[in-house]
């Protein structure tokens, strides 16, 4: 298993290099001249040129690129045009906020969706199934930033139960986490239902019942454990949606995570911050995907065996 993880990490490197190359190149094209923001306005052209030379801005593209990538290892990805702060450091500071948001949203969604998905599956084609599916359908069709605004409207501005922005405590996490979590819950409910329906049909379910296992045991030990495989797969595939969803929720509720950071940096044309944040995000996504794959391998012993033996 360890060897599989290491192999995957190794495999990740060329992908990340290519990805960051693309991003670096694209952002490079958009321009933005750091020299303008560093030197005072009345600096002469010679002074600007001199600074460019010393900063290595006139070097060929690939030299600049590799220098930049090298910077990632040392933690130096340039400085923001706007805040003059270190890009890498700023990103790392804001990362825990987004992880907290994403993590809470995930927990909320799982608590709602898996029981709901199971309930609709075992009551297939009854009013309970229809109710659950209608709710899930609405949840999946709703743009989550609109949901956030509506939640804010109701719970914050009308009822004054919860704050509408900021980050000073758990209270502030509730609405943003609900915003991301409810949409995710709708999706997972649908996936759970179809996975359970598939599994319930299988022959080993009859075997379990013929052993004298109770309904409860049959459902959880046999059905759900097998259904988890496609559920984890589906959730894993949608993980980038969680990222996007977090960015939107952070924007609506002014939650200081990396999503909001990127959005604000784009608005302010802070190229180094945008470039650095996106590349770091991609690395983060790749690591999360790897984590999902490991969880998936644990759920399905057939895959686990494949990777333990081959290494």
């Amino acid at each position, binding site marked *: 298993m360890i060897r599989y993880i290491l192999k995957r990490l190794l495999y990740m490197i060329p992908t990340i290099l290519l990805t960051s190359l693309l991003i670096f190149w694209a952002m490079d094209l958009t321009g933005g001249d750091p020299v303008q923001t560093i030197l005072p306005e009345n600096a002469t052209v010679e002074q600007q040129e001199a600074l460019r030379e010393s900063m290595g801005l006139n070097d060929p593209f690939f030299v600049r690129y590799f220098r930049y990538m090298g910077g990632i290892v040392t933690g130096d990805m340039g400085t923001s045009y706007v805040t003059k702060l270190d890009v890498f450091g700023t990103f790392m500071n804001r990362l825990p906020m987004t992880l907290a948001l994403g993590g809470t949203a995930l927990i909320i969604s799982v608590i709602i969706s898996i029981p709901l998905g199971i309930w609709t599956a075992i009551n297939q084609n009854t009013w309970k199934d229809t109710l659950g599916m209608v709710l899930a359908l609405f949840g999946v069709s709703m743009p989550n930033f609109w949901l956030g605004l509506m939640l804010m409207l109701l719970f914050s501005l009308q009822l004054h139960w919860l704050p509408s922005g900021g980050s000073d405590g758990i209270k502030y996490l509730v609405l943003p986490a609900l915003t991301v979590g409810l949409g995710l819950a709708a999706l997972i409910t649908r996936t759970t239902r179809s996975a359970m329906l598939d599994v319930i049909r299988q022959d080993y379910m009859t075997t379990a019942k*013929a052993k*004298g296992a109770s309904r409860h045991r049959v459902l959880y030990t046999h059905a759900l454990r097998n259904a988890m495989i496609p559920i984890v797969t589906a959730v894993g595939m949608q993980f980038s949606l969680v990222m996007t969803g977090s960015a939107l929720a952070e924007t609506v509720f002014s939650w200081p995570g990396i999503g909001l950071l990127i959005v604000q940096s784009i608005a302010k044309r802070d190229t180094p911050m945008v470039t650095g944040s996106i590349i770091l995000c991609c690395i983060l996504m790749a690591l999360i995907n790897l984590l999902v794959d490991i969880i998936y391998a644990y759920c399905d012993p057939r895959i686990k065996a494949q990777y333990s033996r081959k290494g």
Partner: protein
Amino acid sequence: MSENILEVKDLVVHFETDDGVVKAINGLNFTIGREKTLGLVGETGAGKTTTALSILNLVPDPPGKIKSGSILLDGRDVLQMSDKELEQMRGNDVAMIFQDPMTALNPVMTVGDQIAESIQLHQFVSSKEAFEKAKEMLQMVGIAESRAYDYPHQFSGGMRQRVVIAIALACEPKLLLSDEPTTALDVTIQAQVLELMKDLIRKRHMSMLLITHDLGVVAESCDDVAVMYAGKIVEIGSADEVFNQTRHPYTEGLFNSLPNLRERGEELIPIKGLMPDPMNLPEGCSFAPRCPYATEACEKQPPELRHMGGTHYVACDAYNDPDFCLRRNSHG
């Protein structure tokens, strides 16, 4: 203690689907004696698997509904049992072996755990003890104990079927229901698995209902035979009676359609026609449309099982005529 471990009386099972009512079982009657093996023979669609599931009261509902009848397992009516009683009975008093070993096992549990689960459901032992017992069961079916930690996908078809047998026998049930246990296996493995089953059943003084469409298997392994057609028993008796003194035209047809090694080069004689649509069963005898001996009376009135001597019963009104005799038997 009754003489028979199982008595099925007038069982009627329907499947109520959107397209119509499927009359899967229409008045089924048979018994299995203690330490006896009954072979249940019939074509696909005759209702054999449904019969086995009914004995466990596991017919999927919806769409299946047991409409009437009784199934007495060691004197107690299965169809009247509560859920709790059923859960206690299944696996412990009656166990079932399924047709397709490739899909009968849970892919995410080790085989050891699956066998141990059966034990833990019915006996008050710790999980460690249950797992130890599971290993013993594996050995008994001819699989190395160390393999208890492996997953089903790591076994071949024949070995998986042995695991299924181990699960079924783990709690020492009195009756084993085997639904085409060897159909999905290679021919060479078939013989091995059948031998194993016969051996274990003998050693443990068990009864067995062996469902199959293979007459050879029946001849090898069964004390008694019941022939099923369109949800009813048409002929039942000891293996000797049914094989050597065949009475029902359908049974005759089954034997005739077997290729004969000694007379190679002869044309095969199939039974003409198809099995009736269970949503649309004919009024009288279900076999009448295909029966070479059928008369008008056959199409009006379904025949009752009549005693033909010994333990032999046949459902055929042709025997109203005392001189009636199948062609097979008239050749001596």
